């Protein structure tokens, strides 16, 4: 059994809105981690947390918020808590209301049962509310194949939903209603284009001053910029590097000289050849099977849990300032529908369009579902001139990429995401995409922060990569493990072509599929899905996609 998650830096929260059933509250608390205590108990809402939830009050409005991603003063409304502090929370007066942050980085899952809303920081905290069968969230699994994670308010279970960015729930007259607001950065006209120095200063400002802290140093620009800026805010900075299991291992080569130039203590950790097999189950449990990414990080995360308290992470830097995944054509598109289509192509990256393992009808159904859920997720802002960048942030960054910082490094570590700060986002929207493309603006930002570090080679330099070698996730043992999950899951095998069904039973076929990305994409997804089906087979009623 995997070690339980230790909520020492970020709390686990759960509770209910509306006419909650005491038996269900009992079950909710029974499935929660140890150390839970009541933070609020009122007639229309209850909240339990493993740590302190900060209270706020402004006129007739009161509430609590937790897991703020941005530092700052106490909020004055739930929208303020969601936007300026990027926190999840519960407004207790005048009307009980549950919300997440304006970028959707905080996980707030919920179920509606008999006119009440039960919520928790984890999907698993909501599965035991009743004994009724649960269903596969097919749209979520389609999106996980297309974008690496579910989109909109989907989760792997049809019955469990996740609060959307800038969204809230309120129970009024026995009816559950959704609310949302438009974050101010969407309306911000701006004062012209910010300089690279201004942006670097804003990112530095988002790093809380501390006597000591750590950065995860890769070979890319985000982490080295944060390394430079963290030194300005944190007295003693330590850098950590591990192998990203991408078959090139350039991080291990490039991070050392950067750490040396920064003058920080640097530790590297090389996972053993069986690390994928050993860690994949723990990683999937921690991320609740919502993405197949990040297994490579777990050995490092375990070390960091033992040795560090605060960690600075470069989440979203490449999307905001290098226009990652948003090329010139997409950025220049002014028609909302056309922009949404191009965004679909940019995020899906032909995972479904070139799939040859799923039955054609299933592939078509998945493509339709994933595209529809993407449309749903980006509808509030796709018309904005920065709609494509915001789409990548909300769909890929918040749901797939952030999961490592939130659920592998955290909640044991206090993980800070300085790029994911309202002020930094406001500046990112004002930098023209033409300047971001090709890394022009980012190079200037790095140069403004530290020209010596900026000059060192990086994974963003565009060097041609050779063949991938020695990936832990494609070792014969890893492939055997993946295939065993697929073969054992009948509902999943029914989605595959007869040839693909034969392939997962043959080690030679698996080795051939693992020789390129095209062969591994659907296989990896199927391994994740099959593993999830095995984990929850007792609770699931299987229906067709």
């Amino acid at each position, binding site marked *: 059994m995997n070690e339980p998650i230790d909520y020492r830096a970020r709390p686990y929260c759960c509770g209910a809105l509306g006419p909650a059933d005491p038996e269900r509250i009992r079950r909710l608390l029974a499935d929660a981690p140890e150390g839970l205590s009541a933070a609020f108990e009122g007639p229309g809402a209850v909240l339990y947390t493993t740590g302190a939830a900060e209270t706020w009050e402004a006129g007739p409005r009161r509430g609590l918020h937790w897991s703020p991603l941005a530092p700052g003063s106490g909020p004055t409304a739930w929208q303020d808590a969601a936007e300026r502090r990027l926190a999840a929370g519960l407004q207790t007066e005048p009307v009980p209301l549950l919300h997440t942050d304006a970028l959707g980085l905080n996980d707030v899952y919920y179920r509606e049962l008999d006119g009440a809303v039960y919520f928790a920081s984890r999907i698993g905290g909501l599965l035991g509310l009743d004994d009724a069968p649960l269903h596969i969230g097919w749209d979520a699994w389609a999106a996980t194949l297309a974008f690496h994670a579910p989109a909109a308010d989907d989760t792997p279970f049809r019955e469990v939903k996740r609060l959307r960015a800038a969204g809230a729930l309120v129970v009024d007259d026995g009816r559950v209603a959704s609310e949302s607001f438009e974050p101010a950065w969407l309306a911000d006209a701006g004062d012209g284009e910010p300089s690279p120095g201004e942006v670097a200063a804003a990112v530095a400002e988002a790093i809380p001053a501390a006597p000591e802290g750590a950065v995860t140093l890769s070979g890319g620009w985000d982490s080295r910029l944060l390394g430079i800026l963290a030194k300005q805010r944190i007295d003693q900075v330590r850098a950590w590097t591990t192998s990203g299991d991408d078959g090139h291992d350039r991080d291990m080569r490039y991070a050392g000289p950067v750490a040396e130039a920064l003058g920080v203590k640097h530790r590297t950790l090389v996972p053993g050849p069986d690390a994928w097999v050993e860690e994949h189950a723990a990683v999937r449990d921690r991320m609740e099977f919502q993405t197949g990414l990040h297994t490579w990080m777990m050995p490092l995360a375990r070390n960091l849990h033992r040795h560090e308290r605060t960690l600075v992470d470069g989440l979203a830097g490449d999307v905001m300032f290098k226009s990652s995944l948003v090329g010139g054509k997409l950025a220049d598109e002014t028609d909302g529908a056309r922009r949404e289509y191009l965004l679909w192509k940019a995020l899906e*990256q*032909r995972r479904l369009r*070139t799939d*040859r393992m799923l039955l*054609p009808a299933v592939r078509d159904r998945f493509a339709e579902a994933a595209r529809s859920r993407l449309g749903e997720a980006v509808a509030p802002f796709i018309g904005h001139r920065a709609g494509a960048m915001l789409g990548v942030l909300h769909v890929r960054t918040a749901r797939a990429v952030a999961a490592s910082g939130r659920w592998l490094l955290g909640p044991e570590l206090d993980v800070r995401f300085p790029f994911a700060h309202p002020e930094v986002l406001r500046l990112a929207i004002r930098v023209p995409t033409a300047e971001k493309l090709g890394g022009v603006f980012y190079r200037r930002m790095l140069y403004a922060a530290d020209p010596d570090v900026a000059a060192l080679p990086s994974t963003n330099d565009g060097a041609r990569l050779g063949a991938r070698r020695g990936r832990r996730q494609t070792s014969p043992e890893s492939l055997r493990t993946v295939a065993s999950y697929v073969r054992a899951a009948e509902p999943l095998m029914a989605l595959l*072509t*007869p*040839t*693909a*069904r*034969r*392939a997962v*039973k*043959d080690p*030679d*076929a698996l080795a*051939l*599929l693992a*020789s*390129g*990305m*095209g*062969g591994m*994409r659907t296989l990896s997804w199927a391994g994740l899905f099959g593993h999830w089906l095995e984990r929850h087979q007792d609770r699931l009623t299987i229906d067709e996609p």
Partner: protein
Amino acid sequence: MSSPLGNGSAVVEVVIDFDRSPPTKVKPSVYSALGASKAPVRVAVAPPDGPRGERLRRAFADDRRVAFGDSPPDPTPPYRLHQPPELMLRVGALDRLIREAERDRLGILFLACVKNSDMHFARLERLDALDAAAGDLRDGEELFDAVDRREGTRWIDGTDWAFDWVERPDVTGLHRELASLRLAVHDLEGRLAHAQERARHWRRLAEEPVRDRAMRTLKRRLRRLTGGGPR
């Protein structure tokens, strides 16, 4: 069906599933299959209804080796290769695959072709092995698993063994270039004819003796004076 090459019945039927591929990708697949073996080959294409399928039917209307629809070949060839239209068989590939299957009496030879983020499957089936396995299916067993149990199957790298990837040609660009070259040729042909005509005229004048030219001029003037010709 007799082979148009006069080599007897087809040894292998190549089945190409049209799927959603443009005819520009299907045609190279069909041509490559027809030329991939010394043994007679029949190519079966399952085209969609509508103009795309019709274009393809017209392109191969004169070749009896290419069949459309579900009409089964008679007699049934011993081997069948299923392949997607995005792949082209290399010369000699079919013979190589059949040799490999025959050597170990394999029921199916599966081919996986992986290129960057793209991937395709193909398979060579020994049809008597499939028929036998179909008649010997155990409870809940799949056909390919039964073939594997009875006769054996093997997976090989399709890109190494048999296939090239159909690259999409710039057909529009080629047509445009061809049209402009035709125009240029037409123009040059016109100028050449005009120059040749002028050359013939001057050559004739240059070669005519002075006495003959003077006689011709006198005859013309005499005709005018007598009212017998144009002035």
